[in-house]
């Protein structure tokens, strides 16, 4: 079948020399030129412009109606690829052919002007995203209704709450009807309801038979939405194929073993308030990648608190299985905590902290699990540090839950908790007596 997107041997090269100071001044240029001509060949850093290929030898085709995921670590070239596809940036080599109108949700609200009213911004933003005036006019009421801003449509958007602003921006962007849609991490913004709305919208786009390129760190979302997935690493395609396969590949290469350690506080994930130092799996008191199914698993998150007095620092872990399905997420907020956390409520003096969470024995299924660690600060909820798939571990089936001589196949489910079961006889009459199984709520 004829592809709707054809990418042939595309590459993008950047100059590193100009990246630190993204723009120069004439004086720098003149000074640099004079210096280098004076010193001849053996000159300083200016003429030694390092170049690096953000993307190289990218070749793929997308058929109409496909939803293709693009995954990879930070710096793998995902955003660069989207920039090339959306024509924001030009490839250095290669060729991309698009056989359909392309729209992008790279960032909602692009071109919103704070001084203009909601109505004015709808038209302006629509035009910037490539809609015709007649098209915007036709969809105007729908946009306003979706964004729930009817009463404020004549108010400058600088007076909007951030939620209203975001809703309006997404409402406009979601009215785009291109044959090809690019989506990058839109799901990262906004609250859970809003994210749900976004995901719903993408599903809707998919059912309408349009082609979508979906770039995300969220393996669960990629798994749910995409039929095919491209994995990038170091600017090259390292895998392309069915999402299940590629995500599994990614999960196995993307994370370290039992421990992830960041020695240098300046380079650790985080910001100037909080930084991660380590994430590790502990079982039987040692850091290990292999965990017996009948042993408790402890996950440690070590972090530096750099701002004295911070409170409500939430260490959070997100567990995924080998296919990128979410298994669970948990954090140490007092409402979600089964134990007492000495520090959660207290103002934290600057220093190094360790938060630990223990998963009970006979709880996880056998197989590989991937841990993403977050540091959040509550109220307003902010992600301060994130280490996607920082560590992984393998739960090993020791056979404790199996019948002697029984099968060895994998049990269904993300978890395999050992739960209490009891049987009682309800009515003692004949062989046709019905059995009733019940699980007591509390024992």
């Amino acid at each position, binding site marked *: 079948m*004829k592809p709707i997107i*054809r990418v042939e041997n595309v590459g993008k090269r*950047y100059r590193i020399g*100009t990246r630190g100071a*993204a*723009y120069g*001044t*004439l004086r720098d*240029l003149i000074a640099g030129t004079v210096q280098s001509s004076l010193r001849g060949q053996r000159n300083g850093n200016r003429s030694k412009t390092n170049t690096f290929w953000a993307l190289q030898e990218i070749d793929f085709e997308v058929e*109409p*109606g496909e939803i293709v995921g693009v995954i990879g670590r930070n710096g793998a070239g995902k955003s660069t690829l989207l920039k*090339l596809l*959306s*024509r*924001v*940036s*030009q*490839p*250095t*080599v*290669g060729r*991309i*052919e*698009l*056989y*359909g109108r392309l729209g*992008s949700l*790279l960032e909602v609200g*692009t*071109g919103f*002007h704070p*001084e*203009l009213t909601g109505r*004015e911004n709808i038209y*302006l933003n629509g*035009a*910037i*995203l*490539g809609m015709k*005036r007649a098209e915007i006019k036709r969809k105007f009421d729908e946009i306003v209704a979706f964004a729930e801003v009817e009463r404020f449509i004549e108010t*400058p958007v600088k007076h909007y709450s951030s939620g209203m602003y975001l809703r309006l921006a997404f409402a406009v962007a979601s009215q785009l009807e291109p*044959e090809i849609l690019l989506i990058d991490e839109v799901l990262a913004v906004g609250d859970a309801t809003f994210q749900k709305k976004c995901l719903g919208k993408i*599903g809707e786009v*998919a*059912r*309408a*038979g349009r082609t979508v390129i979906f770039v995300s760190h969220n393996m669960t979302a990629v*798994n*749910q*939405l995409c*039929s095919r997935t491209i994995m990038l690493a170091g600017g090259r395609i390292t895998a392309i194929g069915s999402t299940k396969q590629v995500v599994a590949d990614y999960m196995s290469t993307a994370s370290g073993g039992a421990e992830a350690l960041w020695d240098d506080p300046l380079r650790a994930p985080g910001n100037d308030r909080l930084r991660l130092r380590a994430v590790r799996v502990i079982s039987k008191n040692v850091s290990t990648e292999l965990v017996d199914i009948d042993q408790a698993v402890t996950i440690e998150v070590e972090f530096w608190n750099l701002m004295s007095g911070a409170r409500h620092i939430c260490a959070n872990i997100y567990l995924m*299985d080998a*296919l990128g*399905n979410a298994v669970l997420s948990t954090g140490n907020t007092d409402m979600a905590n089964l134990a007492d956390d000495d520090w959660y409520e207290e103002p934290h003096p600057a220093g190094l902290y360790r938060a630990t969470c223990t998963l009970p024995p006979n709880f996880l*299924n056998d197989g590989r699990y991937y841990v993403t660690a977050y540091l959040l600060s509550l109220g307003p909820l902010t992600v301060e540090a994130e280490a996607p798939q920082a560590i992984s571990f393998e739960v090993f089936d020791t056979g404790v839950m199996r019948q002697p001589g029984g099968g060895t*196949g*994998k*049990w*269904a*489910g993300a978890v395999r908790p050992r739960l209490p079961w009891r049987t009682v006889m309800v009515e003692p009459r004949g062989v046709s007596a019905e059995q009733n199984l019940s699980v007591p709520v509390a024992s």
Partner: protein
Amino acid sequence: MDSISTTSNGVSEPGTAVKPRSASSSPLTLPEKPIVTIEPRNDWFPWDFRDLWHHRELLYFLTWRDLKVRYKQTALGVAWVVMQPLLLSLIFTIFLGKLARVPSDGTPYALFVFAGMLPWLFVSGSVIASGTSLVGSSNLITKVYFPRMMIPAGIVCGRLFDFVVSSFVFAGLMLYYHVTPTRNILMLPVLIVLMTVLTLSIGMWTAAVNVRFRDVGVALPVLVQLWMFTSPVVYPSTIVFSRPLAAVWRWLYMCNPMVGILDNFRAAAFGGSFNWPALLLATVITIVLFVYSSYEFRRLEATFADVI
């Protein structure tokens, strides 16, 4: 037990809907040729008319945004459009016209200087605003594709609107001073086109270079100020031409395209003879600048998103 079927349970609904379908069930038929081809640019022609035409509505909206934003939250609003040339003309009339007695070629000085201010404020205002326009729109440039030329062009169109509004005041002043237009007025459209193309050329170039070298944005107001005093805005060009100077100096003076534009703008409005050599030179220089800046813009455009 087989886990694969169970793990995919929750995802099967959107998952199955997206499987690539055969051509018959696909709602769209693909065109034979690609709608867009993206590759390193190496074409010799700097204008992509099809692309510009496709984005024509964006020009309208950018112009409209420029106007809206400039006059939002101003008490006098559009009145500022006419206040600016009026106030400047008033000051120059008092100090240069009345006190310093600068000649004005037989026209009342107030009318003379307003006729200079009108095109000059359009040119200078557009050039300064275009200079920083791309950098000011970096959030757009790094996110969405459209012909980048639209941004300075939108600024110039916005100022052209100001120019048209002020022209009505100019017409009023003409009536007040009992100056009746002659057939010469037919030259006005030509001059306005020339002036607009000149402004767009300089605006595009400064905007593009400013992305790489922010010096341009800083230096521009000063340079424009210098440009004003080397152009016959507040004085007639005859005070230069009537001097016993070598021909080379006159030609050099006329190399400033604003000489040809302003001289002939006044000739078109008030009657009198056109300065054809200056007009010809201004046209040639404008065309050269336009071609040059189109190429430069096209060349630099490729890296805007990377360096801005």
